[in-house]
């Protein structure tokens, strides 16, 4: 066991972890960041995606010890003073979800995309999000949601 310190959604957190623990499991089970989901544990579904030091990673493919000292941002962290961020509102407005299981991963990834490029083409959106799976098939609505949030990012 060793102690790691990480900043999760702006807050400094500590956790005791074993070297063989995954960041995914530590985020969910020790730090209670429940927006981070999992379906495959092998890098395929993308539901465990988080921003780590401003890079998207699949947290089932990262050791918790590797995240020592890192900054983690998840969908929870986009909410400011109880107010959902533009991308989160756009997901709701455009109905870009059905069961919602994949939503946090798509939200944080879309947020990253729009931060880098506020005006992506449909092709760029599809390619950027190609590592995430929505079993309910809301892909078209997700593209609309990104379009809907685009203005907010362009003016930042």
């Amino acid at each position, binding site marked *: 066991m060793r102690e790691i310190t990480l900043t999760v959604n702006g807050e400094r957190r500590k956790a005791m972890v*074993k*070297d*063989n*623990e*995954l960041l*995914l*499991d530590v985020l*969910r*089970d020790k730090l209670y960041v429940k927006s981070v989901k*999992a379906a495959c*544990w*092998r*890098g395929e579904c*993308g539901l465990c*995606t988080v921003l780590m030091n401003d*890079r*998207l*990673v*699949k947290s089932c*493919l*990262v*050791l918790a*010890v*590797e995240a020592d000292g890192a900054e983690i941002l998840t969908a929870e962290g986009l909410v400011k003073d109880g107010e959902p961020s533009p991308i989160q509102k756009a997901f709701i407005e455009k109905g870009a979800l059905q069961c919602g299981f994949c939503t946090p991963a798509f939200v944080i*990834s879309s947020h990253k995309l729009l931060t880098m490029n506020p005006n992506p083409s449909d092709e760029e959106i599809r*390619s*950027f999000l*190609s*590592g*995430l799976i929505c079993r309910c098939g809301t892909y078209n609505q997700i593209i609309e949601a990104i379009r809907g949030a685009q203005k907010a990012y362009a003016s930042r």
Partner: protein
Amino acid sequence: MSFGSPWFTLPEFTYHKPKTLKEALELLDKYGEEAKVMAGGVGLLAFMKERLMAPSHVIDLKGVPELGQAIYKEGEGLTIGATVTLNELARYGPLKKFGALHDAVRDIADPIIRNRATLVGNLCEAIPWVDTPPALIALGAEVEIRSLKGERRVPVKDFIKGPVEIDLEPGELVTAVHVPEPRRNSRSRFIKYNTGSEFALVSVAANVVMDGGRVRDVSLVYGAVSSTPQVAVKAADALKSAEKPWEVLDEVGRIASEEVEAVSDVLASEEYRRHLIRVLTLRVLREVMG
């Protein structure tokens, strides 16, 4: 959360994060076969979850700054350090000079995985269907290997010895892959054929050197067809000896499809793979010769 299933957990090990190459080599020397190095961890953690590997020591290379660079020198070529990720490499301008590698790197897995997965890790994984080895072989790349005892260089073609089997002794580490400067009038491309999954059923890399209307030199390398990448020597000879190379492309594809080793597995039958080899050879040659 992990439902106690071994498939979702990792066997126990001690994690090390050396800060210098020397420190990394000393750890490798000390733990020998007990140790595995980790770059992006994409492949390693997957193998460990499936209990195909269970090292007692995992040595993370990401803390060693000198392994994290891609450097291009005109006339010499491109040297890609062990922890350079596929995304970092894809964004590195000079990669465009190495067409086949540029094609291969940008189409691996997905952009999120490419934030972690490295070129050297992809090569060292040596699974038959990974994408970078055929491109690296066609471009004549070499692997730079270090241990406490010294260093050596091995062509990628000889480095891959079998499925998940590479020419690396305990205590040794790949520090970089070196891709030589492309020859004058040369052009290379990589094409992967996949359906449904990201894994190739067949992939092909071609590197040609043109000389007027003729092909002076050509390298044709196939991935995912057998346990190791396959080089089509007879097909290359047929193309080089042709006075009008454009007229023999069909024949070259046929020769390649008959000459290389191809296997049947759950993804495709041997017959289908040989068909794909023919078609893809034609397609890739049209691109590099055009």
